[in-house]
């Protein structure tokens, strides 16, 4: 039988965006190590429902670490202290028996709380809408192998493209900056020949939108990349800066 742990869960409750939030403590007992963090919350919610209380609201969907829906700031880290994984891939075996586990929502002006641990990340969609695409209509494409792309470049673009848009970078950043998110998309498309054509326009539009939505200025602390569940590299930010500066100097 696998070992079980007991701990106290301090969890943020907030009725809606306008209400004042507070912490609520729950004693959790006999949680097995192979329970995922979200399954642990499921267990708690099941208990709350049985006690005719409102369950804790949190975002989650695929539960296999790819959709980017789950969030949660666990013990001072977005997606928990484990690193390199999303909250849904965080397992209770990583926590100490008898500890206090504090769970907070992403806190950033760009991501207002909707309820409890759920935040509004539509700002990311808006940034994408500002320019995170290649302007090509359906059916207008040439043969896929007509554009040769060196493997190294394709791999680098893939690494940048692995961003899941979860918002951990903003949550981790003391400046509330979304530069890692923006730079990942700008990098992916700037690296590939298909995206180069409108690279300047894209960089300018996405940065402008990010700023308009109230995200902060990047000071290269690197917290975003350190906490990114997909390990998106900080050098994407350098590339974004390069693209942006080049674009502005050309104007």
């Amino acid at each position, binding site marked *: 039988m696998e070992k079980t742990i007991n701990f106290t869960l301090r969890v943020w409750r907030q009725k809606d965006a306008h209400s004042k939030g507070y912490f609520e403590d729950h004693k959790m007992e006999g949680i097995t190590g192979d329970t995922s963090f979200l399954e642990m919350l499921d267990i708690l919610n099941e208990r709350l429902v049985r006690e005719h209380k409102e369950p804790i609201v949190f975002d989650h969907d695929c539960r296999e670490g790819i959709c980017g829906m789950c969030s949660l700031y666990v013990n*001072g*880290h977005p997606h928990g*202290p484990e690193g390199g994984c999303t909250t849904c891939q965080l397992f209770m075996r990583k926590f100490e028996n008898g500890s206090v586990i504090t769970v907070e929502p992403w806190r950033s002006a760009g991501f207002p709380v909707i309820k409890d641990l759920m935040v509004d990340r539509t700002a990311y969609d808006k940034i994408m809408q500002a320019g995170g695409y290649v302007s090509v209509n359906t059916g207008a494409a040439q043969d896929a192998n007509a554009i040769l792309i060196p493997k190294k470049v394709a791999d680098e673009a893939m690494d940048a493209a692995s961003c899941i848009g979860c918002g951990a970078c903003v949550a981790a950043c003391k400046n*509330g900056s979304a530069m890692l998110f923006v730079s990942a998309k700008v990098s992916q498309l700037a690296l590939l020949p298909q995206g180069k054509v409108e690279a300047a326009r894209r960089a300018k539009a996405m940065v402008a939108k990010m700023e308009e939505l109230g995200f902060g*200025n990047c000071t290269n602390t690197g917290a975003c990349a*350190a906490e990114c569940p997909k390990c998106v590299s900080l050098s994407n930010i350098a590339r974004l800066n*390069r693209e942006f*500066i080049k674009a*502005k100097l050309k104007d």
Partner: protein
Amino acid sequence: MWLSSSTVGRKVVMSISGLFLILFLTFHMSMNLVALFSAEGYNAVCGFLGANWYALVGTLVLAFGMFVHIIYAFWLTIQNRRARGNVRYAVVDKPKGVEWASQNMLVLGIIVIGVACFHLYHFWYNMQLQEILGKETADVAACVLGSANDLSGVSVHDGYSFIVATFSNPVVVVLYLIWFVAIWFHLTHGFWSALHTLGWNNDIWFNRWKTIANIYTTLLCLGFAVVAVAFYIKSL
């Protein structure tokens, strides 16, 4: 103007002004080293940087760079605090691999500026400013604050005497050393961060720049510290 209206633009201003200040510090440190070997040599440099037009232009440019760097620092920090939202995290834990300095640049900057004012009072006030004001000797009142020796009547061109006087006081020496440490922290992050902001970085150069920044900053601060400590030892 994108240098003020866009987030990257503002950071570019921080970077360029920052790099300019690093360059200035490099010159300043080299000049100080001269004092270790030759009092005449050092005073010759001081004379060269007196109240002549090029030194004045240089001073103004430097002051402007300083001013811009500080104003932008506060501006960015205010914006960033606003972007962070009204509610703070209850539990914060520094992520692995994040430099302490990088998250405390403003505090470090304030320490640097604070001691710099003190430093300006010691040297620049008594030298270039007095010269601009047309005086030949140092202002006595200013010197008493920081030095053990009475410097009234010392020529504004005699920088060497100011060094000797200033670093004979152990309290001042310690304060300067703290200052150099703050500068070290500020620059180890600021150096590579500036290049990163200007876009001159990638996965390969990331660690290279960090290493270069650490070595360069360490040499710079050691250069400053050696002069302060050497003159204190001489004064014993």
